[in-house]
């Protein structure tokens, strides 16, 4: 893997006593689609929130273009954020604004462009995600899949270098999911964006990933190309790919203690 744009070094974070990320180190290459996969609760969304700078780790470094965003000042962080886009799980649209206002918001706040230019750019982004004609709808008036696409239009409004997706296809029907995958591939091809997607949808991973990073219980257990992932022998990766349930070892004493609330 060459030319990493993001390097995460030994990231540790915890909620109270629970270690959510436990020494995570990984590289994200420029111009590729990196998928961070893993079952629910493995810490992948937490990792994403660290990459965007929404959360601060207990220890470790996150190097973006060689500069550590953990120790960076808020002001610099805000400047960096204008060059990256994030699509949140539920779209993250501002519910009090129409779709057009949502998409044009970053342009209005961060650029000196004329209103007419902003309008045209807004329509272009909405057209790209197939929502032309819905400019004056409020987020509450459209479906979940459309919200995600509108959120994507806003995320790419500033033509970011890096695009982050939190569960891009979760909760979407198979057809809409496939369309979302196509859209992500199109963005990579036409705009040469670096894309980081957090997901647990197998079909989506197989469709879009160039590079796969598997997390389990806050640790990176596998990192490699999609081809290598599909033939990986690691039992946890295999279980994930083959959709096998984890082995539950039945221990009668443990069960008894758990349900009575007593500890040994």
């Amino acid at each position: 893997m060459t030319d990493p744009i993001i390097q995460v070094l030994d990231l540790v974070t915890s909620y109270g006593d629970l270690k959510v990320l436990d020494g995570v180190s990984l590289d994200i290459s420029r111009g590729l689609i990196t998928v961070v996969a893993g079952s629910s609760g493995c810490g992948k969304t937490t990792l994403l929130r660290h990459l965007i700078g929404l959360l601060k780790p207990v220890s470790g470094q996150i190097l973006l273009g060689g500069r550590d965003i953990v120790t960076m000042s808020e002001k610099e962080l805000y400047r960096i954020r204008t060059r990256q886009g994030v699509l949140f799980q539920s779209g993250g649209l501002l519910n009090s604004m129409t779709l057009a206002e949502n998409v044009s918001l970053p342009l209005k706040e961060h650029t000196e462009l004329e209103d007419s230019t902003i309008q045209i750019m807004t329509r272009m982004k909405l057209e790209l995600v197939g929502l032309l004609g819905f400019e004056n709808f409020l987020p509450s008036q459209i479906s979940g899949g459309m919200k995600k696409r509108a959120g994507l239009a806003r995320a790419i409004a500033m033509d970011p270098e890096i695009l982050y997706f939190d569960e891009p296809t979760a909760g979407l029907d198979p057809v809409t999911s496939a369309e979302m995958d196509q859209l992500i591939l199109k963005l990579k091809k036409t705009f040469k964006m670096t894309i980081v997607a957090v997901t647990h949808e197998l079909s989506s991973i197989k469709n879009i990933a160039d590079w796969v990073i598997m997390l389990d219980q806050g640790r990176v257990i596998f990192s490699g190309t999609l081809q290598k992932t599909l033939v990986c022998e690691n039992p946890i990766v295999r279980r994930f790919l083959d959709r096998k349930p984890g082995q539950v070892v039945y221990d009668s004493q443990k069960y008894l203690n758990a349900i009575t609330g007593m500890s040994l």
Partner: protein
Amino acid sequence: MIYQLAGYMGRKSLSVMGELSHGAMLINETIYWLFLGPFKKKGMRWRSGIHQMVLIGFEAIPIVALISLSVGIIMALQAAYQLRRVGALIYVADLVGISITRELGPLLTAIILAGRSGSAFAAEIGSMKVTEEVDALVAMGLNPVKFLVAPKMLAIMLMLPSLVLISDFVGIAGGFLVAVGGLHLNFERYFTQTVHALMLNDILTGLTKGLVFSMIIGFVGCHEGFSVEGGAEGVGLRTTRSVVTGIFLIILADCFFTVLFYLFV
């Protein structure tokens, strides 16, 4: 038992300290955006500020006026009940005028706005936090304090003192109604008596209180909003707390300022 007590006290004081430090950070950042923002390019969202002014100020005029009118009437009647016995009925004008401008106008307006606007701030910011909208703002590189708090603070700091003026006027008018209609005092005498009784200081101290109360309402509402955790239940909890804490702090501040003004102004 003693361990549990110590643990409870420790946890409580930690959470109170945490809230205080969050509150202080919010105040710090708000002051930055409120006073330096307007001098920066795109530093203040004027349009949103004006929208908030309509919501906070203009739409509160009927309720503020109605309550002030009632309190003016109540004050006049209660004063008359006492003053009639010493045959000093004309002093109803002094009593109503001064207590409305120095005390009841700002206090009533602040309590109405704590219920109307403080809770709205907490609910709006809180539900935006629950639906990831606040995170989305940050991720877009937009500071939530600049985007959400500064326009609200600007609006309430301008609107609350303005509403206090309306409340003063309507409250005194309520006293007028009672005096002229019920107590058969001469309209002109009552008017000159009120004008002589009131000094500019009375109105100014009331407006100063109003400004302080507006900051309390704004900060408490926004702070509670940003402190929302969990889902809808968290929003409800924090909205309630914004009103209760707001009114509590308003009355504390009122007590402090009344003592201060009594001694020095």
